[in-house]
């Protein structure tokens, strides 16, 4: 995956580029908004990671300008501003995701990977998600594993749906809270873990191997390790 990091803080930028390269991505760095815009315009990047406050051209304007040029490269906004309506403003400007500073790198990585995958995905979502023997039918609201039906509560269904949509990718707790529950605040507890463990009890219990995996220090992943 080719990444462009637009960040004016040299130390943070160096840390991010190094960290992304370590996990096998190509990461370029731009130190201000105008350079970032120029690089993003012709660079063919998969994902842009844009700091909100930048010299010469701020992050939101950068993204807005790109969108006006019909460039829809997924962009994630990093922001030190913690205002309540900050996220809304970021998304309104054309950002695809928003992460307040300070953040854990695992959180940023998980979000960036989801964004890059979304780009390559076909426009229409498949109606059936399939991970190994685990099948989720979005239209019929039915989940089966090895042909056996698994009965899920509506919220459990949506939780599994989101995990399976991003099968093979790390999904963080915050991403689950935002995308499954549509809450954008800090619950300060392990409330998501409890929901996942309930789901796991229904999906994995009684089967040979687990489908829902806990990724330490990051979140969860649905993956078929049988193959």
């Amino acid at each position, binding site marked *: 995956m080719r990444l462009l990091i637009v960040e004016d803080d040299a130390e943070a930028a160096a840390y991010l580029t190094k960290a992304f390269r370590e996990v096998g991505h190509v990461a370029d760095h731009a130190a201000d908004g105008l350079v970032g815009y120029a690089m993003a315009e012709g660079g063919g990047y998969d994902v842009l990671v844009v700091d909100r406050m930048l010299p010469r051209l701020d992050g939101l304007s950068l993204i807005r300008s790109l969108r006006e040029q019909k460039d829809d490269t997924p962009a994630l906004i990093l922001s030190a501003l913690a*205002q*309540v*309506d900050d996220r809304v403003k970021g998304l309104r400007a054309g950002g695809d995701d928003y992460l307040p500073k300070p953040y*854990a790198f695992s959180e940023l990585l998980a979000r960036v990977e989801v964004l890059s995958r979304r780009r390559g995905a076909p426009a229409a979502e498949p109606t059936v998600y399939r991970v190994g023997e685990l099948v989720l039918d979005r239209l019929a609201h039915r989940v089966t594993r090895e042909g056996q039906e698994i009965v899920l509560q509506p919220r459990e269904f949506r939780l599994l749906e989101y995990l399976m949509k991003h099968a093979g990718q790390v999904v963080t707790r915050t991403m689950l809270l935002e995308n499954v*529950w549509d*809450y954008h*605040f800090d619950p*300060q507890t*392990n409330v998501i873990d*409890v929901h996942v463990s309930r789901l796991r009890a229904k999906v994995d219990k009684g089967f040979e191997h687990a489908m829902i995996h806990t990724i330490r220090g990051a979140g969860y992943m649905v993956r078929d390790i049988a193959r």
Partner: protein
Amino acid sequence: MTSPADAKAFSSEASPGSREETAPKQELGALPRFDGTRSGAGRPKRQRLLPTLFRTTAFKLAAAYLVIFSIFAVLVLGYVAWNAQRLLTDQIRSTIDAEIQGLAEQQRQGGIRRLVNIIERRSRGPGASLYLVTTPLGERIAGNVEALPPGTLDRPGESEIEYARSSEALDTPSRALVRVFMLPAGFRLLVGRDLEERERLGIVIRRAAGWSLALVFVLGCFASWYVARRVLKRIDGMSETAHGIMEGDLKGRLAISGTGDELDRLALNLNAMLDRIGELMAGMQQVTDNIAHDLKTPLTRLRNKAEEALRSAKSPDELRAALDGSIEAADNLIRVFNALLMIARLEGGRAGDNMAELDLSEIVSGLAELYEPLADEAGLALACKVEPALKIQGNRELIGQALNNLIDNALKYGAPEQGGDGTVTVAAHLQGDQVELSVADHGPGIPQADRGRVLDRFVRLDASRSKPGFGLGLSLAAGVVRLHGGQIRLEDNAPGLRVVIALPAVPKPVETRPPSEPAASTAPSNPAGLPTV
């Protein structure tokens, strides 16, 4: 005194000259003219009070009133004078009429001789009217009028003329109202009355008008000076206090005179503003103190832990564990920091522009559902009693965060003491024009004395110190509630704690009529049976 004509001639002569003289000066005006300004600069110090006085609103108002009252006084006096004169003239006229009628009657009965006799007798009396009887040719037969404007006797009827009673008085003619009456056989009778009385009244009234105008002006000047001085003094006092406050006397407040006038109200409002600013400053101060104390402690701990690990860790695994612990501690600190910032921002009263109409019922039941498994794990039950479609104006994230904190608290501290009812109840219902949202547990509760205190930042009761937390959850919730214009109160759930949040409800337009009625009323509203699109 120069006559108006002289003055006009003078000014028209003087102005072109002066203009010619000033024109080149104005062209030079781009350059500062020190000589001119300096000569005036010595004076302002002495004159400062007076120009200030002229510039005050009170003075301007007083001057305006002065002008208006003067105009009124002139109008009223003018009306009185005009009316009095008219009344007097009417009286004179009717006297004359009566006399003419009487005399004509006498003439008819006793002929011209009798009339002449009567007139001769009457004209001699003190304060007599004016009488004159003439032949058809205008030769005087009897009467007490010596001179008349020519032609007076040819016009029958009423007129105002100048006359003289005797030949000595020819130089100083008096005014009179006279009436000429044609007697049979061409004789003419003139009866009239002197208008001296009326003239004298006019003079009296004019003089009164002059005096009263002068009085109004003098009194008005005094009054305006007094009022302006008073107001000026109070405003100067206010400026002085404001100056003091600016220089750091933050406790200073504007004086209230107690009259409840505009200045008092202004002072009250400014004082309220200062109080609010003071509160915010105190809040900021508290945040700084909190940061100093409550964040320094965990930071020191974090630092010590890292140092300890660096010094004594034997294996990479031990180091890794220590680092993991450090990251966790740092994350917690970040959380505290975020919460503190959020509270400070909430107390600053800036909601941002993303307040929208929210379905509170949906938020509450959603959160209850989110927390239900957690409650289950803690050995508690989470009951949700929420009326449907409760609408409020607010921010979804903030309301969610506040409620989240309350439920989190209830699950943390709401476990019953020994085998009691372990239900945490989340409820929401409409109470008048407010939506009441409550989270109730059956835990040990909070003693009455501590209930006000726990809403403050970093306050953790001794009973809760063993549990994780920072003592910010309730203060954050309180901040959110205040921002939304609601109230938060802590109640005894006997046993346990109930936190009640009251938020202003968005009035439901559907509630004013039953849902079945609109459907019924649409039918008759189209009586013509026109096709609807």
